């Protein structure tokens, strides 16, 4: 994928995606080698043994929906169905919440449509004690850890049951009991923090692992570099995931440098091992996460994982992707849809069928609806009730200093 820039005229280059609105989607340039499956090195191997994987793709599910190759984690049908369940729940939850935002019930929402496998599979491959530092597009981790959906919605509604007391934008979950850190609106900041967390775990001799996720666009931030440097230098037990869903907001991965090298290849300069994974292949993400976790848990340090996927819907409720990319691009994405692929795999195995799928879809749709109704009974952003207004002055410091007390009094609360 690395190549000499084609221009030899002067002037700088501003990379352009292969297709803009009106064009035919074209993924020929993104360098997916689907035919030659990546080998699976020993998880304790030297980092350099993984570096050829930077330009290949870890896959388990082939185009015939069969699980194959060295990376096949050999999950039970039960676990496969659980994965499907989590992904489908994520999607249906997203669909509903997005709609509710359109109806004015939430101020804002972000879906993870098309990339549900990234969070669902990692969530299942990690232990519950493992610490998660996600970005705003891994809500699937919460479902993988069975977080109460009503609590999640209450957060998104900023109502009186919101465990963040109305302080955060929707989708910016925090859930300490679930070992799920606070999602920041600031891109990339959590990546080096995750390394610090992992170092503290290691210092205590715990064998827990910390995992963090950022997007392709966010790899350009300085904090990405800081995280990789810390992780490499201190050999921290952390999994650094780059979710390459091809787009930032309106800018494609080439604006982050993705035309000139894979995101996985960034590991090489830190001497970190890397895996580049079919992010729409639940089994591949599961296997890669497991590989990195096993390595980290054994004291062999960090791994950088690039999950190659596609953001199939808008960036957020504030976005209109049809203004910068072809509408048909999602359908043309060569790695398919993660839910369809796992579903077809289960059907292939004789462990699932269309009617069960329909029934599950219906049940989950109802579950989401019922949970929303329940959550709404605790209030909404516009109507309340919220946490008491005076709570706005709390938790700035452990104890309220005089100036905040004065300000609270000034507001009369």
């Amino acid at each position, binding site marked *: 994928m690395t190549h000499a820039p084609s221009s030899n005229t002067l002037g700088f280059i501003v990379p352009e995606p292969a297709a803009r609105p009106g064009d035919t989607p074209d993924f020929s340039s993104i360098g997916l080698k689907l035919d030659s499956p990546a080998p699976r090195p020993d998880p304790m191997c030297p980092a350099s043994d993984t570096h050829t994987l930077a330009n290949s793709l870890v896959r388990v599910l082939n185009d015939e929906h069969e699980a194959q190759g060295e990376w096949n984690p050999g999950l039970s049908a039960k676990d496969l169905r659980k994965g499907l369940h989590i992904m489908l729940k994520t999607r249906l939850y997203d669909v509903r919440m997005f709609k509710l935002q359109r109806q004015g019930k939430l101020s804002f929402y972000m879906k993870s449509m098309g990339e549900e496998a990234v969070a669902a599979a990692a969530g299942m491959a990690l232990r519950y004690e493992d610490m998660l530092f996600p970005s705003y597009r891994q809500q699937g981790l919460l479902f993988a850890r069975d977080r109460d959906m009503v609590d999640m919605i209450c957060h998104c509604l900023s109502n009186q049951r919101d465990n963040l007391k109305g302080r955060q*934008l929707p989708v910016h979950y925090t859930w300490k009991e679930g070992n799920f850190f606070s999602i920041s609106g600031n891109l990339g900041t959590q990546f080096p923090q995750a390394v610090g967390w992992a170092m503290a775990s290691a210092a205590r001799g715990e064998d827990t692992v910390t995992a963090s996720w950022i997007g392709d666009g966010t790899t350009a931030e300085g904090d990405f570099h800081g995280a990789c440097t810390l992780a490499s230098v201190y050999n921290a037990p952390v999994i650094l995931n780059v979710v390459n869903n091809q787009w930032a*907001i309106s800018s494609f991965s080439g604006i*982050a440098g993705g035309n000139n090298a894979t995101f996985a290849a960034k590991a090489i300069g830190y001497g970190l091992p890397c895996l580049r994974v079919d992010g729409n292949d639940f089994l591949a993400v599961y296997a890669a996460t497991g590989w990195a976790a096993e390595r980290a848990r054994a004291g062999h340090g960090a791994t950088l994982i690039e999950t190659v996927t596609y953001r199939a819907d808008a960036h957020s409720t504030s976005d209109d992707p049809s203004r910068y990319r072809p509408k048909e691009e999602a359908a043309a994405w060569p790695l398919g849809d993660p839910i369809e692929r796992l579903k077809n795999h289960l059907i292939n195995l004789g462990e699932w069928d269309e009617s069960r799928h329909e029934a599950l879809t219906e049940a989950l749709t109802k579950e989401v609806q019922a949970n929303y109704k329940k959550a709404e009974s605790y209030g909404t952003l516009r109507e309340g009730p919220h946490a008491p207004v005076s709570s706005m002055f709390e938790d700035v410091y452990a104890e309220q200093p005089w100036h905040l007390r004065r300000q609270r009094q000034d507001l009369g609360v």
Partner: protein
Amino acid sequence: MSDSAKMTMIQAINSAHDVLLENDERVCAFGEDAGYFGGVFGCTQGLQEKHGKSRVFDTPINEAAIVAMAIGMAANGMRPIAEIQFADYIFPGFDQIVSELSRLRFRTAGQFTAPLVLRTPCGGGIYGGQTHSMSPESFFTHIPGIKVAMPSNPYDAKGMLIAASESEDPVLMFEPKRLYNGPFDGDPHKPALSWSKHEKGEVPTGHYTVPLGKADIVRKGDALSVVAYGTMVHVALASARLAGIDAEIIDLRTLVPYDMETIAKSVNKTGRCVVLHEAPRTGGFGAELIAQIQEDCFYALEAPVKRVTGWDTPYPHAFEWQYFPGQERVTRAMIETLEA
């Protein structure tokens, strides 16, 4: 005389870019999503198509690199206008601003300069939560070597942006995003107003400037002075009108260097003053204004200068209107100052 048209603040900013790109080949504009898409608020929409990809383009998501690239380009003869998508996200670029941009002229004894504009939407009122609502201007007013401005309407926004780009100094322009599509007087329950009915929504289509460093007295009055900028100008106007207070309201427009002459003249006349901003109180720019006002107008002051500001907390999503220093608090402060 050039033609004029009704413009929103977004259109006015867009038009300023357009005029600058048209007039001066050294000008270029860039930022996250600022190229093909034209910015998440549309401030650069259509400009890449019109002026070309090497003039208006997308950047990687790295605010430090955006500022640094702009410095390098400006030092090498260009006139970059860089957009930081939200003021809340300017901080990765803070070091480049404090340590590099602001000092380049000084530390090189004028051999190298970086005449560039950084512009960024700031402020609350759109339920953006704590990461899309900040008013961080005060962090920048303590940096010698950069100018800091915040327009409150389309006319000023365009004129000040052109002035900024033509200035030999680096200018940081904060754009109150709540004003992008219409004036906002602090009452969230009223239907949104439109710039088309506001006199400052009438904007010349061509080139003009609104000078940096000059405040604007947007309402004459004798009872007390109100110093405000950005959205708070509109809140002040509405509060004075509704409460029937004979306030003189000063739209500061430029924070560094601020127009102390206009402020002092007003405060020396009225003897009373209230300072407003949306940013948190402690260490906010209001403190600077008050410190200088009490120094320069001490013997004219009949009451302490009050500040009405955001609270010393992050901007909380659910308590947007309890946080925002709205009409009720502004009116109360004016009355207390009058009665003190």
